[in-house]
Structure formats: C-alpha cells, structure tokens
C-alpha cells in the first residue's frame, strides 16, 4: 500500500513529463494521481489500528551487505502527514491551474512521492535518500518559477538543507556503526532493530555529537532559531504552490524527524538537552512573532509566522509529556492546513494585485469578498483562534510544556508570542483587507479619508479584481473545512497521535509531572 503511494505519483510524474507542451495532460494527471493518493491514504488513515504499532509494513532487502533495506511502515504519527502530503499536493496543483509548463506538475508529483517516502521510511538510509530527493524538485520550483531573487533563495535553501543533511548522515552512520559494534549484531539501519537496542545508545562514545548532528538537520527544516534564515527567502521567492508545500509539509519533516529519530533513538539525550532546546523553541516563538510584525511583505510575514508556530511544536516535543507531543503533532497538522491556506490566499491576492507589499494594498475585502472572507478565516486561524485547529495544537503543546517543571518557565514566556501574533495578524488584516475598496467611491459612513500617503494599487475600473474562481474555491475549501473540523472535533486526529506518542514515550524515564494532590 505504501509503495503504491510512493509509486503512483512517481509514475504520474513520468506521464506528466511526457505529455503535451501546454501541460493540459500534466495537470490532469497530477490531479488524478494526488486525488487517488489522498483517497488511498485517507482510507488507510481510517483503517489504522490504533494500538500504536507500526502497520502496513513492507520490508525488502536492498543492500544487505551493509544492512540497508527498503523498509516502509506507518503509524499514528506518520500517517497524518502522509495524508497531508497527498492532500496538499492536490490542493497545490488546483491552485496553480494557470501554469503551462508540464515540468512544474511533474516536479510536484516527484515531491509528493519523495515526501511520502520520508514519512514512511523506517530504514535510516532509505529515509536519508528520500530526504535528499525532496530537495531537488523544491530547488527547481523555487529557482525556476520563483520571483525576482529566486536563484539566491533556491541556492540558499539547498545549502542550508545540505549542511543539515551532511551532519545527519554522519550521525546516522555513527549511530548504526556504534550500535552494531556494541550490541554485537550485524550492521543495520533498520529503525525497529535500532530501537530495540536504544538502551545502549547512551553509552556510545560521542553520543551527544550524534544527537546534535541528526537534530540540526531537523532544526533547520523546522525551522528553529537561529537556523531559520533560509525560510523567509525561500517563501518570498517561491511560487504560491511551492510555498504551500514548503510550509504545509516540508517543515513538518523537521518536527516529524525529531519525534521519530531524536526522541525515538536518543530518549536520554532529549532529556539532557531539554533546556537548550526549550530556549531555542521559546526564542523562535517570540523572535518569529516580532520579526513577522516588522515585515512589509505579506508573504514574508506569513513565513515568519511559521517560525513562531513551529516554536510551539519544538516546545511541545521537548516537554516529553504525552500532552506536549500530542500538541506538537496536532500543531504541525493544523499549521499545514492553516498556513497552507494563508499562503494560498496571499498567492491568489498578489496574483491579482501584482504586489505583496502590505502598504500597497487596501480594501481587498470590499473588492473581493470571497477571497477576503477565506483569507480572514485563515489569518484568524493563524493567530490560534479557539474553534480552529491551531488552538488545540498550541494549547495542548503549551499545557504539556507546563506539566514538565523543566519546560514550564519557557511555556509561560512563550505566551507572549500569542499577543504579538495577534498584533501582526490583525495589522495585516486591517491594512490589506479593510479600508475602502480601491476605485470605489461609495462609502456612506466614511467622512475621514485614510490619511495614508502611500500610493494604493491603481487600476482602471472597479471590476478589475475578479473574486475567487470555482477552482480556487475548490482548492481552498478542503483546508478550511478541515481546519474547522479539527478545531472542534479533535477526536478525528487525537487518538491516532496518542496511540503512537505513547509508544515513543515508553523509553523516556518518567519525569516528575505536575503538582500532585
């Protein structure tokens, strides 16, 4: 089943690449493939046995001499991301229907295939291979279809990622060699086997370096402070669909990786470095929010808000409590939906206004009510409004962090981020959405003209902005609906997360939690 999820988009990518030059075939193949994958992975999601174990196992030897195998399986933590990958690919393709290059769609399909592989691989080398493959399509999507500074952004993205990858590879190799020699077993990269010997990890020489080598790659992807600086560039330059995938799924590779490999294989080191990681998380929350507040470019603002949101994820994970880990995974899924939607709306908007500068847009709600309303909802979701998925994620992640005395102070400080987030989100809503629609003269209650001296986007007539098309609404709807459903009925996701979070935490020594009665 999992192999199917990896193969379908890969084959579809080949078909798309061989299609006609107008990409008519390519986009249809892309929609069909991602739709089929969404349905299959959705069915797997519903069919998952919530006992916490790995399911849909497929294991074939690949390079048996060095203990590498093709080992894929899913559990309650990885499956939500696989569904998210298929869904967001579908949505991204729908959102870029005007694109006329077939390779664009082929690259998205390749990316979908590789991302599915990342979340499903349980062989460390296989994981690494998929991890690297993900880079390539994204590099071209930013570098070819991006805005003015696309080359700089794309190269920066790759260099950051590769730096992380190198360190991760070293960490993986060292870990595997270390375990095989100290447990006296043949060299293997099989996650299950390595995890069976997790008690040996702490005694390996240089284990701290291994831990940091592996986690740095994930922290870069997450992104955590101070290795987040590639993100604003990548997002600002990436085309809309690229940003959706980048924020929606690729950042989650980082959070997922920390959970699966750092927490799974280095439980003791997670505790040893708890404080350092909490500080990074807290700084990310507050620093990301402050930076977002200073942005003049709407897309960059949303990008920095991701730094803020992912800070909660990291804090939730390092709390090492069931609630914190639950919150982290929930927040990642919620962020994928809500921030994906935010980027989509910003993309649709700047496509129409030909600018992303906040100061140059005003009255967009009056000009395009549908786009305005959905953007409004997405932005409110982004500030963690209760009733939408982001709130559940933030709230449980922070509660989890509060439960652990070590991380509690950082959780309290992080609450400052919630206020600042409201500041920049409302600022953006006000400047961009509210105000008089450009070109309209009817404003019954408007005696005070806006005193702003900035040139507002000019256009010939009031009909120049067309509201969302049917296809664009179809692309936005699933994200919005899911964000609300998950905001009110968390049981659609929580049991899945919990089943596997429990299994992961089994190896963590019980920490003193809470004030007991």
């Amino acid at each position, binding site marked *: 089943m999992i192999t199917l999820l990896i193969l379908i988009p890969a084959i579809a990518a080949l078909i798309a690449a061989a299609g006609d030059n107008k990409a008519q075939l390519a986009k249809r193949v892309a929609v069909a493939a991602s739709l089929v994958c969404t349905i299959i992975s959705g069915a797997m999601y519903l069919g998952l046995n919530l006992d916490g174990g790995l399911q849909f196992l497929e294991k074939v030897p690949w390079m048996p001499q060095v203990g590498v195998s093709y080992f894929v399986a899913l559990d309650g933590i990885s499956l939500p991301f696989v569904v998210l990958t298929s869904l967001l690919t579908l949505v991204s393709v729908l959102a870029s229907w005007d694109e006329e290059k077939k390779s664009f769609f082929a690259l998205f399909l390749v990316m979908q295939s590789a991302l599915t592989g990342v979340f499903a691989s349980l062989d460390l080398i296989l994981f690494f291979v998929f991890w690297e493959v993900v880079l390539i399509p994204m590099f071209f999507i930013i570098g070819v279809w991006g805005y003015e500074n696309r080359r700089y952004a794309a190269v920066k993205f790759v260099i950051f990622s590769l730096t992380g990858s190198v360190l991760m590879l070293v960490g993986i190799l060292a870990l595997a060699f270390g375990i095989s020699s100290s447990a006296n077993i043949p060299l293997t990269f099989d996650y299950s086997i390595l995890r069976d010997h997790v008690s040996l990890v702490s005694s390996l020489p240089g284990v701290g370096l291994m831990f940091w080598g592996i986690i740095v790659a994930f922290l870069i992807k997450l992104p955590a402070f101070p290795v987040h600086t590639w993100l604003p560039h990548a997002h600002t330059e990436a085309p809309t669909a690229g940003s959706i995938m980048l924020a929606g799924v690729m950042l989650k590779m980082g959070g997922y990786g920390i959970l699966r490999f750092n927490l799974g294989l280095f439980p003791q080191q997670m505790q040893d470095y708890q404080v350092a990681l909490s500080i990074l998380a807290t700084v990310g929350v507050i620093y990301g929010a402050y930076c977002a507040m200073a942005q003049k470019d709407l897309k960059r603002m949303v990008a920095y808000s991701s730094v803020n949101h992912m800070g909660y994820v990291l804090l939730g994970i390092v709390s090492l409590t*069931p*609630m914190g880990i639950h919150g982290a995974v929930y927040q990642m899924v919620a962020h994928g939906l809500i921030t994906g939607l935010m980027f989509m709306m910003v993309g649709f908007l700047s496509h129409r206004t030909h600018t992303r500068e906040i100061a140059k847009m005003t009255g967009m709600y009056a000009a395009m009510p549908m786009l305005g309303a959905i953007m409004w909802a997405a932005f409110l979701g982004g500030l963690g409004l209760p009733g939408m998925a982001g709130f559940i994620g933030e709230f449980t992640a922070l509660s989890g962090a509060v439960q652990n005395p070590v991380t509690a102070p950082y959780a309290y400080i992080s609450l400052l981020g919630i206020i600042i987030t409201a500041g920049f989100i409302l600022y953006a809503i006000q400047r961009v959405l509210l105000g008089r629609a450009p070109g309209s003269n009817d404003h019954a209650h408007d005696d005070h003209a806006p005193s702003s001296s900035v040139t507002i986007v000019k256009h010939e007539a009031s009909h120049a902005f067309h509201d969302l098309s049917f296809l664009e609404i179809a692309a936005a709807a699933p994200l919005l609906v899911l964000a609300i459903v998950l905001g009110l009925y968390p049981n659609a996701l929580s049991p899945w997360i919990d089943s596997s979070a429990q299994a992961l935490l089994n190896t963590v020594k019980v920490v003193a939690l809470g004030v007991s009665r």
Partner: protein
Amino acid sequence: MDFNHNLFALMPVLPLLGWLVLIVWGKNMKEPTPGILASSLVFLSFVLAVVGFVQVSPMKEPLLNTLRWDFLPMWVSDAKGVLVSKPLQFGFALDHLSSIMTLIITGIGFLIHVFAIGYMHGDKGFSRFFAYLNFFIAMMLILVLADSYPVLFIGWEGVGVASYLLIGFWYTDVKNSDAARKAFIVNRIGDAFLMLGMFLLFMTFHTLNIHEINSSFGSVVIPNVTTISTGIAFGSPPLELAALFLLLGAAGKSAQLPLSTWLPDAMAGPTPVSALIHAATMVTAGVYLVARSHGIFANAPGASSWVMWIGALTAVYGALSAIAQTDIKKILAYSTVSQLGYMFIAVGSGAYWVGIFHVATHAFFKALLFLSSGSVIHAVGGEQDVRQMGGLREKLPTTHIVSLIGTLAIAGIIPLAGFFSKDAILSSVFTSPFGGDFSGYAIWAIGLIVAFLTAGYMWRWYSLVFLGTYRGHAHPHESSSVMTVPLWILAALSVVGGFIGLPHFLGKNVNWLEGFLEEAAPNALGFHEIPLWGELILIALALAAAVGGILFSRWIIARDGVNSAGWIATRFGNASRKALFVDQTYDIAVSAPAKFISEQLELADTHGLDRGIGALANGTAEAGASLSVWQSGFVRAYAIAVLLGTAILVGYLALRSFA
C-alpha cells in the same frame, strides 16, 4: 438522546445557524428580511432561555447536556503518579448563574436586534450587520453555557472576534478599524493571562471543568490562609496566582485598568453594537468569569482584594473621564467603564450575586441609554457632539422620557433599578471579608464618590442633550416604532429591575436573586454583620450622593453653560477629556517599544544573523569551489556536502578505531 437535557444547548446553535445563513445567502435578501430572520432566531433562543430557566429553577445541581464529545486531550497523574488520559469534554451546563445570563443576553439581545432593524435601515451592509450580531449572540451564549474553561475560552475569543468585526463594521474608515484592532489586541493581552490562569488551574486541580473545580472546595482543597501584617489574608500561592491571572483576563474583556483603553474607542461601531456588546453583555463577561470561578476567588482573599481595588480605581477613572467628554456616546462609554468597576468591586468583595445583580440592572439602563443616544444620533443626522444638541425634549418626546428614566436609574434614584444594585454593592464592600478593614471602608468611600460623580455626569449628559434650546442645524424627528418599542421595554425594566434584589431588612426572602444564586454562586464566607441603623445610614448616604450629584451638576451647568469645557478647572477638564492620559501613556510605554523591538529584531535577522550564516555558507562554498572541478552551483554544493560528509565520517571512524 435525552431531549430535556439537550434543549438548552440549542440556544447558541440557533443564532449560529442564522449567522451561517446570512453569510452565505444574506446578499440576496432584501431589507428587512435579514433583520427579521436574525431577530426571530434570537427570540427563539430567548424562549429556550425561559424554558431553561423554568427547568433549572428547582434544581440544585447544574443541568448538563448529554450530547458532548472529547475536546481537549489531557493527561493527569493518578494517585500513583502515572499519567492517565482524561480528555476534557466539549459540553454545556445550565445552572442558576448561567440561566440569568442567558436571559439577559437573549432578552436584551432580541430588543437590540429589533431596534437595529430600524437603526441600520438603508445601510449597505444590512445583512452583514445582522450576521455579525447573530454570531456575537451565539458566542456569548457559548461563553456563559460552557462547563469548562477551554470551552468558555472559545466563546470568550469568539465574542472578541464579533466585537472586532462590529467595531470595524464601517471598515472603510481607517479610524474605525484602528479602534477594532486596538480592542482585539488589548483583549488578547488579557487572554494570554487567562490561558496562563488555565494552565495553573490545570496544574492545581488536574481538570479544567468549572463545576469540578468549584465543588472541590470545601471537600478536598482547604486553602491555607495566612494573614500578613497588613491584615490582608492570602490563600495558597498557586490559587492566588491563578485567581490573579483570571482577574487580568477578566480585566481585558471588561475594560478594567490597566486594560481599559479600548472600550471608549470601541464606540466607533454602530450604536446598537455599543448597547449590546460594549455595555450590556460582552464587557460583563469578566464579571461573569469571576462569579463563575467563585470557588477560586472565595478562597483567594488576596486576589479578591485586588479585584476590589482594580474595580474601585477603574470606577473612579471612568467617572472622572466621563465628566468632560463631549461625544454623546463617549460619555456613556466611560460611564460603562466606571460601572464595570462597580461590578468588580462587588465580585471582589465576595458577594457574587451582587455583581450579577448589577450586571442585570446595568444591562437594562445602559442598553436603554445607548439606544436612546442612537435614537438621538439618528434624529439629528449623525451628529454626536452634545454641544450641538439640546432642546430635544419637545422634538423627541419618547426618547426624552426613556432617557430621563435611564439617567435617574443609573444615578441611583430610589426606587429605580440602579438604586438597589448600587446600594447592594456599597453595603457588600462595607462588610466584605476581604482586604482587611481599611480596604473595605476605603473602597466604600470611593464608591460613594463615584456615585456622586455618576449622578453628576449623567445629569450633564441629559441636560446637554434634552434641556435648553436646540443648538444644532438638523431637523430632529422621532424614530419609528420599531426603535421606540424596545426603548419602552428597556425603560420599564430599568424601573422595576431592582426589585429582584431588595435589601434584607425589608423582610426574609425578599431578596429573590441572592436566594436564586445561592447554589450557583454562593457568597464568600465571613461577611460582617451591620445593624439595621447602619444599613439605613449607608442607604441614605448613597441616595444623598446621587441627589447631590444631580444638584451639583445642575448648578454648574446653570453657571457655566454648554461650552464650559468641563465644569471644574480647565486643567482638570483637559485631563478628563483625554481620559487621564492613559492612552498616551500606553503609546509611549508599550506600543512604541514593541514597534522598536520588532524593527530591531528584523534588522538583526536580515543583516546580522542572515549575513552571518550566509558568510559561513559562502566561505564553505568557496572552499569547496577551490577543491572542486565541477562548475554548476548546485552540483558544486552537493559535492561539498558529500566531500565534507565523507571527510568527517572517515575522521570519526579513524578516531574510533584508535579509541
């Protein structure tokens, strides 16, 4: 499914449906269909509220709906210290306290909906307006019906969003949307504290269910009360701290110092909004929160005395700021701030029913006053400056009469509603168990001064609008009956509303409200007794303050006329008009630094951190380039990676084999 248990849970669902329908199809509806639809749904909710009231009246325990589901996944440690999953449920509870609130929200909400059909006539956003109003009612009902803090928080933030949408309703005006944003952000500061409070409560009680927390007092947790040298008692630290955080959350929503500055600006919204949200319902949510958390506050004497003091200071602040305002709605807005301060005094004193009593009476007369000023603004063509009014007594006879009733009611003239609730507040703070002797008497004295000021500025409001001769240029006309009928009903309530909470000395069981709330929000323990003559003196003094305020105001206006900028010295008048410069202080102390920090960090991010890491990367890339024969940038980078990786790996393995 148990019908009887879930009927009341329909209350928020109906207006929520109205919102959905109006958002989706509202544009195709002709005026006044959206207004009628929205009003009738709120009326249906009111009917449900009445049914719920009847249902719950004889019950001792709250009525819980059975249709509930897991909302927040939570883990708590059991007796052995093992974490067990105990999800928090999304559920509603109706008890005597929430029942009173639902009656106020849906009842007054309905009247204001009807009024708005007339008031918003001809507005381009007619259906949008009613969509938002319905959304607000739904969220407010969720807030009061919630049986846990997180569900309450949904409503709490939801009303914030509704208020944001409605303040900025005429969103094409930058000033209005500025006001809306300010309101939301100041509220958000309070909300962050509320979340903090929730975390502490969760850590202390291992649950966030309000009824479980309240009922755990007296049986499980006995607060360790210590008295420090000042005579102020303190409960256990986590409890006091949690209560303090809840207080800060409540202060944000209820515009208490230091989070009070948003409310006067919020008057940028249409007048029915000011009446409904910024006078009668939403701003009282903070009072409700304290009353709802009575178990916590009753056992946190320290935090309770903070509640009283914040209330007292806010009451003075609001009253002083109201004195010299010239905008017909701003006077009422600062008056609301001040009256909310009164409510905080009441709930801080431990007499929770008194706070709710004043919530109710204030809802009657302040909604009445706001709608009356809406009627006046409507009549004089949008003018809001009281100096451009006057002499409207003959031209708007209905509005005049009801405004007079409202003015006397808020001033506290016997036997109107405000008299009884204000008297109850003053006597409860006089006898309060919290804050030591000094606080009780000092706050009582402040309350008395505020009563004097209230009567004064309200009489000024009334005189400048209705007495004398008309100074404006419009042609005032009385509003249509769709607007005047709600005014009459509210006026009637302002007259008789006080009789639900008659003072004790009139006989046993005359105080219906206190008895009704005995289970849901019982008084804190330890109120002092005062003799009958003492109580009579308190009442006489309160009445004297009210009458004195009116007389003083009459005298000043007779002496200085309309254009007396404030009645007292010019310098004070200026301070009052600027609301004691609190806003300006915030700009200097909070907004400017926040902006500065964010700009500096952004500079640091792009020029410092990014450049630094960029330089590191460039250095590596150049080193790689010199080693490499590859030309393309991408492949080159890859090559460095592989090279570096291999080098490090080989180095590591080499070291390991020597080790």
